Each structure stands twice: as C-alpha cells, then as structure tokens.
C-alpha cells in the first residue's frame, strides 16, 4: 500500500478522528477522577464513582428498564420489519412507489412531538402501563432503522434461490425461514444492533413515556445531572461504552463484523 496520501487529506482525517474520539477520552478521564466534580485531566485516579453508580438503586433499576425496553422493542421491530421489508423488496412492482416511504415517516417527525403525542394517546387516553407504552413507543422509533437495513440486505438476495427451493419441494412458507433468513443473517444482525443502540440511547421519546417508579437509564441520567454535578454520569457513560464494546466484540467473534457493516 505505497499509495501517497496528500498531507492535507491526512491532516483533515486526523482532525475528524480527534473530533470523534476526544469526547470519549474526556468522559473516560472524568469517570476515573477522584474529584467530586466533572473535571479533566483527572487529578488522582479512583474507582469511587463506579462504586457509587453501581450502588445507586435508581440507576440499576433504570438500566434494567432500558435493557428490557431495548430488547423488546428491537425484537418487535424485527418481527414487523422482516416481513415488511421482504414484501417491499420482493414485490417491489406491486406497491405504489410511496409505500415503502411510509415506514420512514417516524424519522421525519421530531422525537419530542412524537413522544408528546404518544403520551396523549397511549398513556392518557388508553391508560396503558408505562412499560407497555415505552416498548410500543420505542418499537415505532426503531422500526425505520430495521426496515432500512433489512431492505438493503434483502436487495442483495437473489429471490430465484427461493424459487429454486420451492421447485425442489420445499413449502413456500418454509423457504422464508430456511432459505431467506439464513442469507440475510448479517442484515438482521446489523438491524438488531442499530435498533438496539437507538432505543438504548433515546431520551426524547422516553422522557414523555416514563412514569412514577419506571424510568429509562438515559432519563435517569438526565434527572441526575439536573441536581448533581459529580462524575457519576461519566462513570455511567463509561459502563455503557464498555457494554457496547463487549457486544461488538462478541458479534465480531461470532459472525464477523465486516459482514454486518457491509
């Protein structure tokens, strides 16, 4: 790879990397700081803020809520998204051209507006429990991502393989499971990651849907920083980063992330 890179290109690429990584370094530094306020660089190192976070029942409860909501919403979005994108991609000609855009509408509506209308309809009018409302809201929130990624994956799938399987004697419904799904595994995984992270990081929608005693981690962090200014939030962020990193590494090991991101 002896290709010459223009110095300006090298510099700008370096700046972009710095721009992306610097905040993470700051957070990392702040989390391990012994001081009682958010500061960088750290004066002396300590794990006390991690201890504090892990002992805060509010955070732990909220984390469990976030995890439950993210997993349920992602699973539901995949359950709806897989058949949807299958139909859209396979029968492209049979739908009007605007049809697939319908699934991207949630992206167009500002999340604050979306959260507020969910509050008015789902919580106030239907009186759904907070957990159900959260899962419903997040499912709608992440569905566009799932449909988009799955659609891209299915576009690369040659549906004549499905026809071949049927001609060899497999029931058409079974081919969806036995032929289509194994071949869009990477897409499903990518959709899962994207939807899961989107749900886990959401604030705006959750803000309206959380209620007494039930809160997501992001909302809990927001409430916390309104009152305290200690490095606990930095510690939470580091823990979340660590979890994400572990998930990525596990996926990389088991499926090969190169396939996922493709």
């Amino acid at each position, binding site marked *: 790879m002896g290709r010459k890179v223009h110095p300006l290109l090298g510099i700008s690429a370096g700046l972009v990397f710095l721009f992306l990584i610097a905040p993470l370094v700051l957070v990392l530094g702040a989390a391990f700081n012994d001081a009682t306020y958010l500061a960088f660089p750290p004066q002396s190192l300590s794990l006390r803020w991690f201890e504090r976070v892990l002992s805060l029942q509010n955070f732990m409860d909220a984390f469990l809520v976030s995890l439950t909501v993210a997993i349920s919403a992602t699973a539901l979005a995949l359950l709806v998204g897989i058949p949807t994108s299958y139909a859209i991609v396979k029968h492209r000609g049979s739908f009007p051209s605007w049809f697939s855009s319908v699934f991207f509408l949630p992206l167009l509506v500002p999340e604050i507006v979306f959260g507020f209308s969910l509050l008015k309809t789902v919580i106030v009018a239907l009186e759904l429990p907070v957990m159900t409302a959260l899962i419903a809201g997040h499912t709608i929130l992440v569905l566009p991502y799932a449909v988009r990624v799955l659609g891209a994956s299915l576009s690369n799938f*040659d549906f*004549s*393989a499905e*026809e*071949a*399987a*049927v*001609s*060899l*004697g*497999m*029931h*058409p419904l079974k081919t969806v499971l036995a*032929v289509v799904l*194994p*071949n869009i595994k990477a897409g499903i995984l990518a959709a899962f990651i994207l939807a899961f992270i989107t749900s886990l990081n959401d604030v705006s929608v959750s803000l309206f849907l959380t209620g007494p005693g039930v809160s997501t981690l992001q909302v809990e962090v927001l409430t916390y920083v309104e009152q305290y200014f200690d490095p606990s939030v930095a510690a939470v962020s580091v823990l979340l980063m660590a979890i994400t990193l572990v998930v990525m590494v596990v996926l990389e090991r088991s499926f090969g992330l190169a396939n996922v991101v493709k």
Partner: protein
Amino acid sequence: MKMTPSEPLVLDRVSASYGNTEILKDLSLDVRPGELVSLLGSSGCGKTTTLRLVAGFLTPTRGSIRIGERDVSRVPVHKRNIGIVFQNYALLPHLTVRDNVAFGLKQRGVGKTERDRQAMEMLETVGLTGLADRLPSALSGGQKQRVALARALVIRPPLLMFDEPLSNLDAKLRVDMRVHIRLLQKANERTAIYVTHDQEEAFAISDRVAIMDAGRIVQLDTPEVLYRRPVNEFVARFVGFENILPMQVIERRGKFVTAALAGGATLDLNQAEFGIIPDHFLLACRPEGLRLAAPGNAGVPVTLGMRTYLGRAYQYQCDSDAGPLIAHGAVDEAHPGVGTQAVLSVAPQQCAILPAAKS
C-alpha cells in the same frame, strides 16, 4: 440409480395474463417422453411465461397442463416435481455444493446418508467431486451451472426445465455445457423443456424446436425442417433467410414453374423440391443462395453496395428493384466497386417458398 419412467408433457390451449395483458393465447404443445423441446424466440415472445406456467410460478387463466396422466394446472410448485435449471443458477448461497444437490432429496424425506451418497454420485457425473464442500460463492459460473444441473437431475423428476441456462457463460463454455446437458438429458431419459433466445443453441440441443412470437408457437419442428422449410416470413428471418422477395407465377410447365420478381427478373423453380407453389408467394433466400454474377446472366439485377469480409465469404449489400438484398461472394473474387451494376444468380437449394403476406 432407480429409474422413474419419463413422461409426456401436454399443454392444452393454455392462456395466461399479467394483469390485463394477455401474454399467452391458446397455446398447445405436446412433448413426447424423453424428448427435448426448445422454446425459441426473442424477449417478450412468451417463452419464459410458458416455462413459469409449467413450473407453477404462474397459473393459467384457461387451459390445462398435464405431465403424464397428472393434470398439474392447479398443483402448487413444491408438489409438481419438476427439476428446474435457472438462468442465474439460483444456488442456495448458505449451503455447500453437496447440500445444494441433496436439497431436493431432503425435501423428499431421503435420509442423510442416502442423500449424501446420491448427491456425490451426481456430482461425479457432472465432474465436480472435489468441490462438494465449497460454498457456491467459491465457484465459477460454469461450475455453478453444473451444480444447478446436478441438483435438478438428482431428484429424478419426470420433467426437466432449463431457463436460458447458458446465457451467463462465455461462448466456449456455452458450447461445452450444451453438449453436457444434452448427454445427461439423454442418458437419464428425461423429458425436457429448454428456453433460449439463441437459435444455434436451440438447434444444437433439441429434438424439436418451437419458435414463438407474440405468445403463440409459430412453428414446431425438428431443427432440420425449420432450417430448410420455414412456414412463414417470421420463422424464415429467424433461421437466417435474410432476403425475402415477393414473386408471382407467370408460367407453369408440369412440375416446373416460372416466377417473376418485381422488376421483371424471372426464376425457374421445381415443384418436386418445394411442393405446390401458389400463384403469389415469397421467395426466402439465404445470403449464400445469392451469388454475384456478371450483368447479362440470369438472375436479379442489382446495384452493388458495401462489401464486408466474413472469413468464409464476402458479404455484399445490394440494391434491387425489389428492395435491399444481402448476397455472398467467394473470398477470392475482386470487388467490382460500389455502384457497379451486377446480377445475383439464385441457388434454389438455398431458398424456401413462403405464403404471400396477407395484404
């Protein structure tokens, strides 16, 4: 290997539509047991629609399709028991070559050991024994097509269907593969339908060829008959009769007929060779059937145009009173020059008689 008998395929006045557009109209076709019939035509002629109807991916609006004694018109695809070789191979990307070939056997409830044995045996027949554990993505186009062929054959279907199976391969491989397909189809005594737009390929591989146009079969015959005796102008042009001349009989003497071309040139034809010649007809003539001769000889007077070199002959673009003509000349002759007056002598054995176009 156990032999299931080969079965005839009968399409009886089958029609099919996409939406409001009728693609096939009252199409009938009989394929004898063990016979290979090609459906030949340009895109949009209905050949692929016919294949998809027989396969079951489409349902006929009228008419019936029978394989042997069985009416399959309403039988779903996965119960039809037809081996299909697709244009783009359609291998299952997540399965190894062996599992691809064994796939149909698995659906039929054949045990793992037995289906692996049969798959390996079939892979040996198509010459791919060493590649059994590869994924399709690691194969070349020709190898993929062999796997597809093995996969279709191993289920011993009463009917094999080929949907332009060679159109994604390069020219040399196409010729090898079509011989291979023909040998296997014969050795296994399978009835087969072969869809292609390539006339040479269809003629090389088939017992009979159905030439299709606008959702109908225009002519169904052996390649030899199609090549020498097309029934109309469409088929004639398809099999290489590039010159079509309207003619009129001016004199009959026993089996000999003298006919005149627009512009006055006359030609003697033998009815023993062509059958009864009607008063008005079209003379279809291959370029090889029109030879360059000096003015004054018998034949069609023309003005010579451009000459192109084909290797085995020269080809001349000519202008006659009856319209443009294409003639061949020997490779050793000198070009008389663009714009020269000449005569094209007609070799009747390179010609066919067609009914006059309805006016």
